[in-house]
């Protein structure tokens, strides 16, 4: 930590806190301005300009063009992703609880987790065709593994002291599982959900581009093939907002339902 002499603060008021805000804002502004200026000497088909992208983004919503595809994408991500997360937590708890189950399943789980799952898209199409089922299945399959592995780790690494409390006061094994081990694993599980939620977006877009053309993936391909770069980038912005939305939603869930995670970690500092 650098120690600013307090005499400087009055006039220029460049406190560390302000600097922390000023730097990223300035960086973003510089990049946007440079990008805009590049429009004067770089072919707009290559990277377009911020104003053109902003205009197209506005029009996509104003005309309602994007609303249908947006809904389709959202539906796939939410249904496929939630299924992956729920099943992942379920299997993870069982694997964490029963050593035999973990021994049997972990080679397969690790195999799938390590494989870049885009490679199974042709197989998914062979199984269920090219409809929405295939896209949902792919989102499910890509979401499943991180949350599953994190749940296993959370159950395994439960604080022995918490389990001792349950045992000392005579809780049954089932009670210890539900009332102590699983709640204690929630921080691990949420970390897994965060990774899986990011993958759900990737799964959604990739399956819309590779399985059957719908949703945002369809728009990306169509605008790309037509060299409509500014519209393409507008859809990219929307897709990245999915990611931001996921992060904010998970943060809200943690603060609303599991406020103890952050608070108890901070109290132990």
């Amino acid at each position, binding site marked *: 930590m650098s120690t600013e002499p307090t005499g400087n603060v009055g006039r220029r008021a460049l406190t560390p806190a302000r600097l922390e805000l000023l730097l990223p804002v300035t960086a973003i502004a510089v990049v946007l301005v440079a990008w805009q200026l590049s429009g004067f000497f770089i072919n707009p088909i290559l990277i377009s300009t911020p104003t053109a992208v902003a205009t197209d983004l506005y029009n996509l919503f104003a005309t309602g063009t994007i609303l249908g595809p947006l809904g389709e994408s959202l539906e796939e991500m939410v249904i496929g992703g939630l299924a992956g997360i729920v099943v992942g937590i379920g299997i993870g708890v069982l694997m964490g609880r029963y050593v035999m189950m973990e021994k049997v399943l972990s080679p397969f789980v690790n195999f799938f987790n390590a494989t870049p799952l885009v490679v199974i898209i042709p197989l998914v199409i062979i199984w269920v065709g090219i409809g929405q089922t295939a896209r949902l299945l792919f989102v499910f399959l890509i979401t499943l593994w991180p949350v599953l592995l994190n749940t296993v780790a959370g159950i395994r690494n439960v604080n022995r*002291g918490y389990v*001792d409390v349950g*045992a*000392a*006061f*005579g809780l049954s094994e089932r009670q210890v599982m539900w*009332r*102590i081990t699983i709640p*204690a694993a929630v921080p691990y599980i949420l970390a897994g959900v965060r990774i899986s939620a990011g993958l759900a977006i990737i799964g959604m877009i990739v399956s819309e581009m590779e399985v059957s053309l719908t949703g945002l993936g369809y728009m990306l391909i169509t605008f790309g093939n037509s060299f409509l770069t500014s519209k393409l980038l507008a859809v990219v912005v929307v897709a990245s907002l999915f990611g931001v939305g996921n992060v904010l939603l998970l943060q809200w869930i943690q603060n609303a339902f599991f406020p103890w995670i952050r608070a108890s970690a901070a109290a*132990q500092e």
Partner: protein
Amino acid sequence: MNVKPLLEIRHLSHTYETKRRRVEALRDINLEVRAGEFMSLVGPSGCGKTTLLRIINGLTPHSEGSVVLDGVELRGVSRDMGFVFQDINLLPWRSVVRNVEIGLEARGLGARERRRQALNALRLVGLEEEAEAPPYTLSGGMQQRVGVARALAVEPKVLLMDEPFGHLDNFTRESLQIEISKLCTELGMTVVFVTHDVDEAIFLSDRIALFHSSPGRLARIIDVDLPRPRWQFNVRAHPLAIRLRELIVSELDVRRGLAI
């Protein structure tokens, strides 16, 4: 005091295997704890006093001998004991009162009855105001009072305390010692208390069981015939307390001399 023992430990031995060797943790422990008595187990670290406490509760299985409560030999975790942990380990996702309720959940009580008993226990330690607070907002001393309430809530026949004040600062420790001393006297509670703090053991106990290490075994039992209530005078300066401290320290020192 010629009372029938409430808790008896008979010929209790415990050995366990590690990858490298066989460890004899406790050898032939015989100990009787009378009803309403405050007994401390004192000894150097590694003398197995915490292991013995866990065995009494049933948390750790033992190799030989028996633990008998009220004439009945114990198998597995006893429901007639309350355990106070050094690490407290309050569950951060539960409020204070829900933490105190946990032992009552194992006993199949309804929600209202659980709440009533838990609040009673919190009242005993003076924390009913904090019932709905999350545990991590409390100071270390208050957290351990919740730990005590959690153990008292199950209305135990014996209260087992494993260095409960070990992680607390001096001032907090002293005030909690007074509180525990008062509380256990008022409730007539039978207590087995593990500590390596000799002054703490003298202040609290009716009798002190001294342990030697490797293997852990009972050296001797010392009566603490100091008058009660003890918070009304300076126990440390009392001539008998000074003599007892010297006795205990020399007893434990012999071992330290041999170990070096």
